[in-house]
C-alpha cells in the first residue's frame, strides 16, 4: 500500500473542547487550520455560515438562515433535528470587529437568553476559536441544560419523541 503520500499525513484528531467555565458560562474552543480573516468570513457570510453551523452529520436540517452582520443587525436561523419540530434561533449582533471578535444575543430564550462572544486568535496561520455563551444567571444555564436547548438536543428527548410516536400508534392515532 503506497496510497498514503508523505506530504499528506492523516491530520491528527482535533476535538473541540467544551467546558462549563463558571456557573453562568459555557465555552467551546477549537483550533482551525486557516487565518482569522478566513474563519471570520465563514462566520459572517450567510452562504458560508449555513454550510457548517447546522451540520447534517449531526442530524440537523437547515430550513432558513438570515443574517445581517453589523452592529444592531439581526439574524434568524430555523432548523430541525431529525423529525422534531423546527427550532428557531434569533437575536442581534452587538459587536462586529473584523477578524477578531463577534458578539451576538440569543433572544429565543427570552430573559434566559445567553450572549455569545466569539474570539478569533491567529497564530502561525491557524486560528484559535473560542465561543463563550454567557447566561444571565446560574439558573438560566441550568434551565438551558435541563431543556436541552441551544440546538444540542439530549438523547432523552429523541427517545421521548419515539415513545410518543409508538404510544400514538398503539392507540391507533397518528
Amino acid at each position, binding site marked *: 500500500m503506497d496510497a498514503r503520500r508523505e506530504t499528506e499525513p492523516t491530520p491528527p484528531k*482535533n*476535538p*473541540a*473542547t*467544551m*467546558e*462549563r467555565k463558571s456557573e453562568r458560562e*459555557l465555552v*467551546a474552543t*477549537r483550533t*482551525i*487550520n*486557516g487565518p482569522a480573516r*478566513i*474563519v471570520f*468570513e*465563514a462566520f459572517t457570510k450567510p452562504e*458560508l455560515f449555513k*454550510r*457548517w*453551523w447546522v*451540520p447534517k*452529520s*449531526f442530524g440537523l436540517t437547515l430550513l432558513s438562515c438570515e443574517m445581517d452582520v453589523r452592529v444592531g443587525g439581526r439574524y434568524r436561523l430555523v432548523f430541525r433535528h431529525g423529525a*422534531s*419540530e423546527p*427550532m*428557531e434561533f434569533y437575536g442581534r449582533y452587538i459587536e462586529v470587529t473584523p477578524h477578531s471578535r463577534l458578539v451576538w444575543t440569543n433572544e*429565543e430564550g427570552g430573559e434566559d437568553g445567553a450572549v455569545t462572544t466569539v474570539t478569533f486568535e491567529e497564530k502561525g496561520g491557524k486560528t484559535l*476559536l473560542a*465561543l463563550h455563551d454567557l447566561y444571565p444567571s446560574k439558573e438560566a444555564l441550568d434551565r438551558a*441544560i*435541563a*431543556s*436541552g*436547548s*441551544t*440546538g*444540542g*438536543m*439530549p*438523547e*432523552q*428527548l429523541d*427517545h*421521548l419523541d*419515539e*415513545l*410518543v410516536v*409508538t*404510544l400514538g400508534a*398503539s*392507540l391507533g392515532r397518528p
Partner: protein
Amino acid sequence: MVKYSQTGLDASFAALSDATRRGVLEQLGRSDLSITDLAAKFDMTLAGMMKHVGVLEQAKLVTTEKVGRVRTCKLGRSRLEEATAWLERHRQLWDSRFDELDKVVEELKQKEKNDGRKKRD
C-alpha cells in the same frame, strides 16, 4: 422549541405517585428489562406498560433504548450525570460544526491560492 415547563421535582413526584411505577423502578434497580418483560411481571398489556414507562421517562427516572424490536428500560441517570452527558452531546455538536468549518476554510484557502496564481499569470 421543545421545553418542559414542569419542574423536575414535580414530574418525579407525579411519576412516583403510582404503585406500579414504583414497582417498575424497583425491578429496574435489579436489572435492565424490556417493556415486554415489565408488562409480563406486572400482568399488564404492552400499551399499559408503555404509558407507565413514558411517565417515568418524562420524569427522567427511566431511560429507554430500542435495539431492533426490543425496547430496553433502565434507571435514569442522576442530574449530575445528565448534565455531563448534555455537555458531551453539546461538545459533539461543536465537533461536527468545526469539522464542517474546516472544510469551508480549506476551500476558501484554496480559492485564494488559485486567485493569487491567476493574478500572477
